[in-house]
């Protein structure tokens, strides 16, 4: 009995739902607009979060740790240190840079001013030799530093990586994550409330019908489903429109920025494919979910007959 009622349900339900959205067109439009507004604001924050986290990841992956050797290191010391570093499974790669290479690199980086260094040669080279280390996981930077420091005065002079730079980025990333979460919660409550009110109007307009349905023996799920479908549909429509708006805006901003020197050299906004791919799933799930939730709250008290 129960199963056969599920079988024929969708057709009636879809019919009743579409009629209802049409009948309440003004309130339906208001609900959709509120979802759009909420999702656009949310979208902006999400894009910010995604960009910051991508930037952090990017910077972290480019981070290198430099183990500077003492100026009077011996070949034996150099080998021991290199062996220890290469044996560690935290380390992606170890490259040796002799003091001559370091000087050449520095000189090259000075470009037209390289003549400043012309007084230096292999005899009085002030640049120390070093190992340049890339780690697999940026979180291990400190551990690798500790490992390298065990060879202090046994060939190693000091170890250096951009601690402070990383810390600032990580902090900022955490901050944007938290901020997005707060915005998410606040806007969700507002959107659910607006959808709740729309569906309540629908439910109220059809309360006679609901009463009759209950007397003829309709189950609560049967009565509920068109309202939930209606709310979900409003949420989904809002999500799709908001997504399109955000997408157009993102490409526009990207176009503006690519020609300007606003962004730090070497960085750009996260690729649109990545951002939009994440966003569309989130929007659809979120839109549908708040629509359904608002409806469930709205119909609850009308079901007791």
């Amino acid at each position: 009995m129960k199963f056969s009622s599920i079988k024929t349900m969708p057709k009636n339900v879809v019919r009743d739902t579409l009629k209802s959205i049409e009948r309440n067109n003004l309130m339906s439009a208001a609900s959709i607009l509120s979802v759009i507004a909420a999702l656009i604001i949310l979208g902006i924050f999400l894009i910010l979060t995604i960009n910051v986290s991508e930037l952090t990841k990017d910077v972290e992956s480019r981070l290198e740790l430099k183990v500077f050797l003492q100026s009077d290191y011996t070949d034996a010391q150099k080998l021991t240190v290199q062996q220890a570093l290469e044996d560690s499974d935290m380390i992606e790669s170890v490259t040796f840079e002799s003091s001559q290479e370091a000087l050449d690199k520095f000189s090259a980086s000075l470009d037209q001013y390289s003549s400043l260094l012309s007084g230096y040669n292999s005899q009085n080279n002030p640049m120390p030799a070093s190992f340049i280390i890339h780690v697999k996981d940026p979180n291990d930077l400190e551990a690798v530093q500790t490992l390298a420091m065990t060879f202090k005065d046994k060939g190693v002079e000091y170890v250096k990586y951009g601690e402070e730079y990383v810390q600032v980025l990580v902090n900022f990333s955490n901050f944007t994550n938290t901020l997005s979460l707060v915005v998410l919660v606040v806007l969700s409550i507002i959107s659910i409330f607006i959808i709740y009110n729309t569906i309540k109007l629908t439910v109220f307009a059809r309360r006679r019908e609901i009463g009759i349905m209950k007397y003829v023996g309709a189950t609560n799920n049967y009565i509920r489903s068109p309202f939930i479908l209606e709310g979900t549909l409003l949420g989904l429509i809002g999500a799709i429109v908001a997504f399109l708006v955000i997408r157009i805006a993102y490409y526009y901003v990207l176009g503006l920025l690519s020609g300007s020197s606003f962004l730090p050299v070497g960085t750009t906004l996260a690729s649109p494919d990545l951002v939009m791919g994440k966003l569309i799933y989130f929007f659809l799930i979120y839109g549908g979910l708040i629509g359904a939730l608002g409806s469930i709250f709205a119909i609850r008290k009308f079901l007791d007959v």
Partner: protein
Amino acid sequence: MIEFKNVTKSYEKNKSDALKNVSLFIDKGEFVFLVGRSGAGKSTFIKLLLREIEPTQGSIFINNYNIANLSKREIPFLRRKMGIVFQDFRLLENKSVFENVAYAMEIIGKSEKQIRKRVPLALDMVGLSHRINHYPHELSGGEQQRVVIARAIINNPTILICDEPTGNLDPETSYEIISILEEINRRGTTIVVVTHDREIVDVMKKRVLTLEDGALTVDDAIGRYGYEV
């Protein structure tokens, strides 16, 4: 089959009971009138049958099933065994006669094929075949009530409960409605008619239960309108 065993219902603690220790038995296939003044407990009786409310004390059996033990999820399935006819019809204004009756079948998941077959039969039984595509506002009161009866019997309930079915109708139409109910009763459906309509009760010579101030005072096998106004 309907059985009340020492049923008491009180809505609020301080007020007097709406139903006082009522016991009664209505067998399968009976035709019973339930009469009484306003406030005598008739509505409470119907609400208890529909499990809209629960008795404060006592138990109610429908088809040997104690409905006091029913969970909320089971209530719809209880109501599918009963047809209900209201004084104020309760038809859906935006649906045609056919759709109003079909609705009761859609809700319990009958196929479109079954619906197309059974709805005209039910409408034929209440004499409304010629109105099948009309809307409620185009029908007279008596015709609307026939649609309600068709909707109530479309799923073959074992019990048909009628709450003042002739309350809004003129005497002639009332007789037509009652004779339709009698016809349905002849096919084996138990019928309980709650009414104020003294003439009909007296003419029909069916069993009459009389409620007074919540108590069952008269139970006549071939009854007349029980209490004097």
